[in-house]
């Protein structure tokens, strides 16, 4: 856990709605707030419809949020104009889910890694070449594959190329959007180890988005649990897993498979399906499936409150 207490990213009341038909909105991200300390890895977990991917992209303005603030080192990046934003992108990077489809199939590895350097006018040919070599070594890619094309590489290597690109301009913040979901287990382990290593070596701050709780538990310092576009619970990884407060978190954790056949949690089976967040009114998003739902839950949206130190939960059970 990083000792820095400086806040790197502060997300305040972020909202993003998508209009899919007349007066019908999908509340993809509905008033979420969280902080990420410098050097910290914040895990963002949720199932389909939770809004985690939209949230991750909105934080980087890859999708323009409808309202809210995203403070990066104290400044609201949503206020930046086009030029300022382009300048800041050196510092705010992203690693995507499917490495093979994200890389331009017509470019070789060298061109792919050097692209961000060229866009931001890093320097001359020699400077770029040196930097690319340094980056390749940092992510564990051998020199021979510089002239290879994405389709000639396996998923793990392609993802390393993606990571090399992301750290090319020495960013301080990287959004990792399901970076290992498309890899096989051994590649997953390699990439997770690499991400962890880079985080300490280069003092990087991550927003780590994933649906796989085992992976998130392994890597993150703190975790935010999303459900249908709203934050249900935020806590340190250890505390969330040892003492989950929100009924959704409890059900979610109980559903995660484990290799340890002696230590199995009591399964909480939820009723019903994950609904789509369309035209939601007041009330807790989890109301319909919650095994501990009370009457107030249907009418009043619970606010995110600090229950224990740095452990926040949005639930009427904790007043």
């Amino acid at each position, binding site marked *: 856990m990083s000792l820095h207490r400086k806040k790197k990213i502060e997300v305040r009341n972020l909202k993003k709605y998508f209009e899919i038909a007349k007066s019908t909105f999908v509340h993809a991200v509905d008033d979420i707030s969280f902080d990420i300390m410098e050097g910290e890895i914040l895990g963002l977990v949720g*199932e*389909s419809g939770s809004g985690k991917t939209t949230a991750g992209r909105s934080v980087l303005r890859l999708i323009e949020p409808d309202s809210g603030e995203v403070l990066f080192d104290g400044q609201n990046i949503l206020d930046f104009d086009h030029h300022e934003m382009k300048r800041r992108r050196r510092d705010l990077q992203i690693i995507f889910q499917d490495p093979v489809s994200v890389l331009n199939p017509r470019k070789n590895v060298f061109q792919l890694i050097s692209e961000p350097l060229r866009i931001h006018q890093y320097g001359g040919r020699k400077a770029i070449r040196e930097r690319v070599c340094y980056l390749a070594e940092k992510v564990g890619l051998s020199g021979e594959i510089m002239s290879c094309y994405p389709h000639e590489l*396996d998923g793990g290597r392609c993802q390393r190329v993606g990571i090399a690109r992301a750290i090319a301009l020495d960013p301080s913040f990287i959004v990792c959007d399901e970076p290992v979901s498309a890899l*096989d*287990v*051994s*590649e*997953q*382990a*390699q990439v*997770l*180890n690499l991400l962890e290593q880079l985080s300490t070596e280069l003092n990087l701050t991550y927003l780590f988005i994933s*649906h*796989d*709780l*085992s*992976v998130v*538990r*392994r890597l993150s310092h703190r975790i935010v649990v999303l459900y249908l576009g709203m934050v249900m619970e935020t806590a340190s*990884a*250890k505390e969330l*897993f040892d003492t989950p407060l929100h009924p959704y978190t409890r*059900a*979610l*954790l*109980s*559903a*995660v*498979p*484990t*290799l*340890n*056949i002696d*230590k*199995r949690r009591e*399964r909480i*089976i*939820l009723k019903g*399906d*994950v609904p789509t967040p369309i035209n939601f009114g007041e009330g807790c998003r989890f109301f319909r499936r919650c095994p501990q739902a009370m009457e107030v839950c249907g009418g009043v949206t619970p606010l995110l409150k600090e229950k224990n130190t740095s452990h926040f939960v949005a639930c009427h059970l904790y007043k």
Partner: protein
Amino acid sequence: MILEVRDLAVEYRTLEGIVYAVNGMDFELQKGHSLGIVGETGAGKTTMALSILRLLPRQGVITRGRILFEKEDLVKAKEKDLQKIRGDKISMVFQDPMSSLNPVFTVKQQIAEVVKIHRQVSNKEADDRAIEMLRAVGISEDRADNYPHEFSGGMIQRVMIAIALSCQPKLLILDEPTTALDVTIQAQVLDLVKRLRAEFSTSMILITHDLGIVPEICDEVAVVYSGRVVEKGGIGDVYKDPRHPYTEGLFNCVPDIEDPDKKLIPISGLSPSSRLIPPGCPFHPRCKDRFDPCDKSAPRFAEVSPGHYAACYKYRECC
């Protein structure tokens, strides 16, 4: 013994060459038991499952081996006899629910169809049975006339289970049934399978790449690598005392929610190619315990403890 697979080999004859998907698979299933077949993507598990019911695509050819179901060799069976077995004695649930059902027929029609194929019943009786099965899987009757696109992934998977169990088959094969589903929905579906299995005493094969879900519903497990079974035995034996280097490698590189500080040790080397099969043990190029006999010929099973087998020269004399 309800199913015996002996030395099964299946290849795909494509324009770019031959893909050796299954290379001598060997396992068996006792009546009433359930077997988990685990392996990474491309290990040949799905191909093997499709071979049982001979549902391989046109390029897939079974080149050797036997699949004995109740003493009858399915590899040699005639198409007409296989049609009698499919859906009636052996049923299968496939991986991607959203594309598994015909979009132009209602779910009731698709369930009733399998009943009509194998039982001499009137249309009304078949429809009634369909509704009964829907209820058994937790879908209310008034959704019977809906079309597949009106359901979520989890519900379709339950419809698929309803179809598979309508004629009370002796063997149920589930091929990655929950891979495309959210973890809480996965818990629902697995719970359903557990209950129905107990109710109908069906023998079962569960195919998955997720080591964590096998202990949920299986008694035995077979670990597959590059088209061969490398280890098999009871859950307790294999999960607590894995013997094959690949199995050990798998357990070491997968994050576990109950063991958050576990160091992830990737398996060295690259995933195996299915076009070029090396001589000897399929795992030897990546095996840290490799020694002299490993690249000469593929090892046969050695019984490392009662009922627990590993195909590795560490435990048996060469050849």
